[in-house]
C-alpha cells in the first residue's frame, strides 16, 4: 500500500513541475511567422499566423510577387515599362500597369485632379527623388504645370499613351496599394487566411490573428508612439504624412518675390516645412495636414485617397459614398484630429469594435 503511494507521488511530481514550467514559459503571443525584406524603396514585413510549412509557402509567394511589382512599378528602374514611357514615349501595354493607371485615373476624376500620377516632373523639380530638395522658382513650377495633368494620359483598349510628349508618370502614390492587394492574393492562394502585411507603413490585415483582431497603430506625426490603435479585419490602413520626406525652407512669399527688402532673417529662412506630397493644382507641397489615414477594404483606392485627403482635407470625405466605403483620420498641422463617423480609435485596444471588410 505504502509502495503504491510513493510511486504515485514520484509520478505526480514531474507532472507538476512540467505544468509550472509551461505556465512560466507561456509564449506571450501566438506563433506568428514574420519576414522582413527591403523592397519598393522601403521595408516590407509580412507576419503570417498559420502552421509552419503553409506560412513559409505563403511568405515565399508573397515576397516573390512584391519583388516583381517593386521592379515593374518603379519608374526610375530602366527595365520598367514606366521608364520607357517616360523617357522614350513607348506606350504602356503591361496589363497590370494599365489596370493601376485606370484606377488612378478614376481617383483623379473623382477628386478633381487632386490625385495625379503625372506629377513626376514637379516631384523632380522639387528634388524629392534624391539630392537635396530645395524651393524652386515660381516660373519653373509654372512651366512644369503645363504638362502635368491626368488628362494628358489616354487609356484605350489596354494601351496607355500620352497627349503631351513631356508628360511623365510616377506610380509611387499608388503602387504600394497594388503591392498590398497582390500580396494578399498570393497569401490567400497559398491557403493563408490570417496575416498582416506592412509595406513601409501601408498595412493590410487578412482575417484575424487567432481569436483576436490584428491591431494597427497610427503613428503620431509630431512625436513618438501612436495617436491610437485600430482593429482591422480584411482591411487596409494607409497613411500619408509630411513627417518623413520633407525639407525646411523660407516661407513661400519671400521665395516667390525674391526677398523682402533684400534681407532674409535667419528666423524667417527655415520656418516652413515643405513635404513631398505636391498639390497638382499649384505645383506646391500640400499644406494644412500632418497626417491622413484611410481605412478601406481596397488597398489601391486606400492609398490614392490618403493622398486626396492630404491635399483636399475633410471635404474629400464625401467621396466615401461614390468610391466605396472608407473611414479616415486626419490630423491637422495644429494637431487637431478629424475622425470619420464609424472610426473608433483607442488607447486601450482590447475594448473597441474592429473595422471589418469582406475577404
Amino acid at each position, binding site marked *: 500500500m505504502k509502495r503504491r503511494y510513493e510511486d504515485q507521488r514520484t509520478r505526480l511530481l514531474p507532472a507538476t513541475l512540467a505544468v509550472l514550467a509551461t505556465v512560466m514559459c507561456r509564449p506571450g503571443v501566438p506563433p506568428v511567422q514574420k519576414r522582413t525584406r527591403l523592397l519598393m524603396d522601403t521595408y516590407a514585413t509580412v507576419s503570417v499566423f498559420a502552421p509552419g510549412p503553409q506560412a513559409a509557402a505563403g511568405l515565399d509567394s508573397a515576397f516573390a510577387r512584391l519583388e516583381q511589382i517593386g521592379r515593374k512599378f518603379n519608374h526610375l528602374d530602366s527595365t520598367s515599362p514606366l521608364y520607357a514611357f517616360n523617357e522614350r514615349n513607348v506606350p504602356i501595354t503591361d496589363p497590370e500597369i494599365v489596370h493601376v493607371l485606370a484606377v488612378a485615373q478614376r481617383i483623379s476624376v473623382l477628386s478633381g485632379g487632386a490625385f495625379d500620377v503625372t506629377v513626376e516632373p514637379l516631384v523632380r523639380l522639387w528634388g524629392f527623388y534624391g539630392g537635396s530638395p530645395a524651393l524652386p522658382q515660381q516660373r519653373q513650377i509654372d512651366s512644369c504645370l503645363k504638362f502635368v495633368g491626368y488628362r494628358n494620359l489616354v487609356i484605350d483598349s489596354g494601351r496607355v499613351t500620352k497627349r503631351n510628349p513631356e508628360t511623365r508618370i510616377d506610380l509611387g502614390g499608388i503602387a504600394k496599394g497594388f503591392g498590398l492587394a497582390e500580396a494578399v492574393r498570393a497569401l490567400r492562394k497559398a491557403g493563408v487566411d490570417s496575416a498582416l502585411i506592412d509595406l513601409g507603413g501601408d498595412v493590410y490585415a487578412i482575417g484575424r490573428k487567432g481569436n483576436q483582431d490584428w*491591431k494597427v*497603430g497610427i503613428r503620431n506625426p509630431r512625436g513618438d508612439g501612436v495617436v491610437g490603435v485600430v482593429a482591422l479585419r480584411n482591411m487596409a490602413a494607409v497613411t500619408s504624412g509630411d513627417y518623413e520626406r*520633407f525639407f525646411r525652407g523660407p516661407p513661400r512669399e519671400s521665395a516667390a518675390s525674391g526677398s523682402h527688402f533684400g534681407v532674409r532673417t535667419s528666423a524667417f529662412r527655415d520656418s516652413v516645412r515643405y513635404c513631398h506630397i505636391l498639390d497638382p493644382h499649384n505645383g506646391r507641397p500640400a499644406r494644412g495636414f500632418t497626417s491622413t489615414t484611410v481605412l478601406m477594404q481596397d488597398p489601391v483606392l486606400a492609398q490614392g485617397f490618403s493622398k486626396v485627403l492630404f491635399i483636399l482635407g475633410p471635404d474629400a470625405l464625401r467621396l466615401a459614398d461614390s468610391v466605396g466605403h472608407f473611414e479616415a483620420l486626419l490630423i491637422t498641422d495644429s494637431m487637431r484630429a478629424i475622425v470619420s463617423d464609424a472610426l473608433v480609435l483607442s488607447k486601450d485596444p482590447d475594448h473597441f469594435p474592429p473595422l471589418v471588410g469582406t475577404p
Partner: protein
Amino acid sequence: MAARARGCKRRCRLPPRPNQSRLLALLNRQLERLTLLDVLLVAALAALPGWALVKTWRTARGEREAWVYQANRLVGVYRLDVDQTIVIGDQTRPHMKIQVRNGAIRVAESDCPKGVCRHAGWVRAPGRSIICVPNRVLVEVKGKTKDYDAESY
C-alpha cells in the same frame, strides 16, 4: 471600569488545544518522508511570486532594446537604457551614426541624400522603426509593452 480592566493581573495565556500535539506529530511524520523532489517542488512554488514580480517590474519599466539591421542582416541588439553610439560603416568614414540617449534612439548623422532616417528624430516606443533605404539600414525598437501588431505611417 476601564481602570479595572487595565489593572487586570490575570495571565491571558490560551490553554493548549488537546489535539495540537497530534498535529505536530503528523507534521513530523510527513517531514520525515520528504524527498528531494518535494523540496524542489516547494522551492519552485516559492520562486514563482518572485519571478512574477521581477517580470512585471521589468515590463512596467519598459525594458526596451533596438535591433539594428543592415542589408537584411542583424548588426546588433542595443539596450536603450545604456547611452551609446552605433556606427554603421567603417570608423574613419562612417555611413551612419546612430545615437542612444535617455532611453531613446535616433540617427544623428547619415550620408544618405534624403535624410528620411534623420527626420524620424528620437524614437522610443516599442514597435517604432527607423528606415534608411540608401544605407539599407533598419532600426527596430522592441519591448514587451507593445499593444499593436503594425504601425501605419
